[in-house]
């Protein structure tokens, strides 16, 4: 029997969070962590977590699985269970609403701060704006972000300053627009980032890269932003 320890907290009834242990029979199958949660919820409906697509593209079920952030729906037990134990905790650093559900307001606010939309005031053509395959390729590894917050909540700099440091997810998107040949707001975007917190709290810890379920690399994107800042300032 697999021992599943889950972080429980219900503000209506609990004074403080606690760990609850469940026994779970995997029947020898290499289930995804989300499958385990779904079956546990069928027995204990008070268990709260988010989930939607169950295939790793919607970013709902980011959580801390045996110490490492990841998406429950695409994390097989064989990759995370140690000593027959599955330990599930909410994403670190964000306020817990209930059980595995965290309040992501600060995370979304940082995303909004980078003005995550294409800015181009020139009159739009009757067809699409042309973009070469090479220019389009620059967006690969950036636009795929699913906003699951695994990276930002693995980042110590984001733990300490979630209101000031944009965090890996937001910065990856900042660079997604800086890198887009169709976006013309580069200068404004850069000047909004040149303070000691927004970008420069990144110390290259790479916790973000280690946990990203989509295999993206915010550290590299942040490096590119820094280079762009450097180029525009020297």
């Amino acid at each position, binding site marked *: 029997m697999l021992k599943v320890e889950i972080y429980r907290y219900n503000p209506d009834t609990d004074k403080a969070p606690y760990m609850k242990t469940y026994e779970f029979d995997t029947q020898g199958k290499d289930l995804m962590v989300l499958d385990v949660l779904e079956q546990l919820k069928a027995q204990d*409906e008070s268990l*709260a977590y988010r989930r939607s697509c169950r295939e*790793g*593209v919607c970013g709902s079920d980011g959580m801390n699985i045996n110490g490492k952030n990841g998406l429950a729906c695409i994390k097989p037990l064989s990759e995370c269970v140690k000593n027959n134990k599955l330990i599930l905790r909410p994403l670190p650093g964000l306020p817990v609403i209930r059980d595995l559900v965290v*309040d992501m307001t600060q995370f*979304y606010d940082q995303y909004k701060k980078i003005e995550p939309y*294409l800015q181009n005031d020139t009159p739009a053509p009757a067809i*699409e704006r042309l973009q070469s395959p090479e220019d389009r390729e620059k967006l690969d590894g950036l*636009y795929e972000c699913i906003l699951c917050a695994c990276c930002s909540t693995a980042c110590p700099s984001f733990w300490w300053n979630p209101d000031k440091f944009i965090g890996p997810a937001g910065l990856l998107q900042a660079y997604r627009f800086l890198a887009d040949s169709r976006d013309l707001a580069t200068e404004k975007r850069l000047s909004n980032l040149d303070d000691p917190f927004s970008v420069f709290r990144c110390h290259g810890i790479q916790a973000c890269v280690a946990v990203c379920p989509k295999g993206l690399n915010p550290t590299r994107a942040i490096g590119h932003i820094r280079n762009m800042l450097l180029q525009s300032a020297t």
Partner: protein
Amino acid sequence: MASIRTISFDGIVIGGGGAGMRAALQLAQSGYKTAVITKVFPTRSHTVSAQGGITCAIASADPQDDWRWHMYDTVKGSDYIGDQDAIEYMCSVGPEAVFELEHMGLPFSRTDEGRIYQRPFGGQSKDFGKGGQAARTCAAADRTGHALLHTLYQGNIKSNTVFLNEWFAVDLVKNADGAVVGVIAINIEDGETVYVKAKATVIATGGAGRIYASTTNAHINTGDGVGMALRAGFPVQDIEMWQFHPTGIAGAGTLVTEGCRGEGGYLINKNGERFMERYAPNAKDLAGRDVVARSMVLEILAGNGCGPEGDHVLLKLDHLGEEVLESRLPGICELSRTFAHVDPVKEPIPVVPTCHYMMGGIPTNINGQALTQHAEGIDTVIDGLFACGEAACVSVHGANRLGGNSLLDLVVFGRAAGLYIEKTLREGIEQRNATPADIDRAMARLNKLNTSTTGESAAVLRKELQTIMQNYFGVFRKGEFMQLGIQKLAELRKRIENVAITDKSNAFNTARIEALELQNLLEVAEATAIAAEVRKESRGAHARDDFEDRDDVNWLCHSLFFPGDKRVTKRAVNFKPHTMEAFEPMKRTY
């Protein structure tokens, strides 16, 4: 007595997926006070899972491409019960809507000329079926839905749309005149129930694929909008038409895009034979989805299935080479490795037809206005209610949707609904009021659930519901089985109406939400079952063993299911496009 908080908007959109956000964007841009009520954060909506692309004649892959060819394909794909005025509108306005998305920033893949990359999809032809396979599906690698949904969310951030994120819409508020004047919604975070009042209410809640046990749909696809409409007494159209996508990963149900076959992949049986050559000699693996799905089931039933159980076939991609797969289908490679434990670069993917899309829904006109029918069979607009996207049935998909047309449907008709509401708001429609009794009526279901003491749990009942639907209303259907299924559903209804929750806490109570969702699933399932039994023919996705042929004499029409007396009536299909001659029904071969 209703004593709940009321908040007011000009327009509210229920559902934060592609259609909902496109409608909201249109309204918010025009300065009207717009709110999106969405039970998940918008980018978690199921649109995010769309892979292959958005089909539209933007004439990139072929400069000669014509939206009329696309219209022809769509009419034919619908097995001739798609409304031709709506299809004409979608195909002709499509390019504009797609270019708007590109201008908003959608990161489409590109051709060498810098234009949007288009790939071939099933059911696509040139020159009204006479010019061979077309490539008309605009793609952002195999993550088009994700790219589209995020772009729309970004556009809404720019336009300052109000998002009521993680709010669950429970039931429509209908006043004495039969007009819809808003919705009752729960703020999931703290459990507060609010009356959200609006001059226009748009249902954009997507599909209900979760009525089936095996589905490509997300957990959240529970048909909440259709359930609400049915409970409010409004009819649904063509709800028996459920698309089974040919390539769901066997066991997991995860979707593998048709784009795989568009890029040159094909299906093989246990003998390694490319069996689609037998079923559709011309289009082969790129025949309509209904045709491919049925052929696969026939192969499996004939004992040609793969695996120890012989219960699936294989999708072969390895011959395309690693480079093509990693650049054009990176997401598929990822999903296949995760869910099928198969690397498509080396081995074929085990696939099986899986419930994918609800062609039916709330009937609307091309302005997104929801329709009902008078006793004499005349269409009437439901005041204050709109629908778009998968929840609606305009109907552009008829009995079978073509790949890539769902994304086009949702942007074109999300936009159209937004434009129309904008216009009526500009002309000045007054805010109709609801009496406390109206609100109480809309609260009844929630109140019952909140005070329930005895009853079964949602998880158990949901499983039973899904099993019934899977067994009696799947790829192939048969009258006597369906009647049995309908009986079982009727018994299940009593139990589901009495579903109970033991957890009655306020903060993020997902048990309460799941119980409410289950009741929506039941509404959709029952409508599906009854309409499917009534339609005594095989057309598009609706394939009956006991009526194997299409019956244009009796059934070249929409079905309308009325929830009150569970009656099914017929509604005429529109054969009057505005700019051209209608496409007359023909034998549908690929």
